[in-house]
């Protein structure tokens, strides 16, 4: 299959799935906007009203990291079950199995667009006016997408061989939430642990970088970002090779499961 056909097929599948999902709900596509608004309101209620957090920007501080984390978590979790969920198609046609995690990841990406729009509106509401530094968000989104693709492909592949991996993924996501500096500032952690977290946990680096740009007009470690791009690109390349190699083996596992 040509790369262009692969991309078009992934995009078609993702858009059809989104349309199918929207048609099942009375409020249809409006849920894309409503869901993140309710989500932010729930956090506002907990942290600003119930806990009366003294830090006035805490809600924005939280959202700058929680939203990228949720994108990662939702995308990888949904991608993990994507091959198994398409058992019907896989049992009938010899097709690249990578299509399924990619389509899931694409669905999550489209759903995340209004969520990030809401985050930007919140930033403006809190007085953090968009500046030229916001351009540096683009490579950040790109790295996060690569991170999601690599993790999603690994998760989807492993779930084909052992469904137990789903349980592990759920635990992993919870663990990542606590070690990625979402509820606290990663810089408040002692050295050398702080450096280790930022170096070896890409999510901690991404969350911290989103905050740096959106709230402090700052800049992330560009060399680390380039390193991540190279690492994830190589990893994704290897995963595509592995998917090709195991294609029929995956089909056997999924069909006979």
């Amino acid at each position, binding site marked *: 299959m040509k790369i262009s056909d692969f991309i078009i097929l992934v995009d078609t599948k993702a858009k059809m799935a989104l349309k199918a999902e929207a048609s099942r709900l009375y409020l249809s596509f409006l849920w894309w906007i409503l869901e993140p608004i309710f989500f932010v309101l729930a956090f506002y209620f907990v942290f600003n009203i119930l806990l009366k957090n003294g830090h006035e920007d805490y809600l924005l501080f939280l959202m700058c990291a929680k939203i990228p984390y949720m994108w990662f978590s939702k995308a990888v979790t949904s991608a993990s079950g994507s091959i198994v969920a398409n058992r019907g198609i896989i049992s009938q046609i010899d*097709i690249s199995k990578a299509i399924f995690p990619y389509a899931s990841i694409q669905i999550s990406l489209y759903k995340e667009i209004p969520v990030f729009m809401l985050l930007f509106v919140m930033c403006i509401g809190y007085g953090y006016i968009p500046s030229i530094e916001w351009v540096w968000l683009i490579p950040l989104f790109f790295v996060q997408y690569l991170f999601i693709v690599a993790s999603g492909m690994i998760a989807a592949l492993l779930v084909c061989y052992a469904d137990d991996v789903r349980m592990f993924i759920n635990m992993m996501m919870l663990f990542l939430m606590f070690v990625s500096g979402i509820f606290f500032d990663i810089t408040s952690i002692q050295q050398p642990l702080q450096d280790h977290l930022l170096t070896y946990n890409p999510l901690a680096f991404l969350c911290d970088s989103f905050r740096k740009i959106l709230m402090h007009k700052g800049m992330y470690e560009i060399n680390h970002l380039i390193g991540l791009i190279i690492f994830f690109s190589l990893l994704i390349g290897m995963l595509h090779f592995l998917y090709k190699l195991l294609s029929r083996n995956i089909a056997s596992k999924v*069909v006979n499961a």
Partner: protein
Amino acid sequence: MSQSSVILKAENISLTYKSRTGFSSSFTHHALKGISFEITMGETIGILGKNGGGKSSLLRILAGIINPTGGQVICPPNTTRALLTLGLGFMPNISGRENAIYSAMLQGASRKKAKAIIPAIEEFAELGEFFDQPVDTYSSGMKARLGFATAMMAEVDILFIDEVLSVGDAHFRQKAEAAMLNKLKGDQTCVFVSHNSDQVNKVCSRAIWIESGVIKEQGNTATVAHHYNLFMQS
């Protein structure tokens, strides 16, 4: 490939399933045990056998969807193969038209080509205004019609057909059978699987009867079908 006209060669194919039944126990099933045969270009062969006899698994192996656990399938390089199935990847909340486009794309067509063959699918499926309605509003016969119309558009070197003629009402069944016979009359190489020997007799020049994972008999369709019928009645 020893003969130039041989388009597919199955060599000693076996398939063993191992499914887990507990923490340390498993169940092993030998679905296919050493199946060998050849298909020549342009030939239509039928595979007969009762339900659960390993026919669908064999078809999946021949179509290149799964690998056998033993033996091998040899095809000349770049031979395209497709398993003709009904309702490939249909999404219930999406219209028949969009599902047909998606299904054609799954079978290897580009989006442009998929859109180009839509009028032919629309005409063949006879769904009228339902073609633009979600598939979950369809009756099972309508779904089958859409599925058959979409599947028939696949252009490949070897076509594998699994029990597809038992769908829809009598009128559509006749139409589907005629369309398939028309396709098979040309140069199309085809492997047709059924538990119904009359269908195999109608479309195939040669038949293979599979029983409990092994070839029980192969050769002239009428003879094999006759023996198969006698066996099934006994």
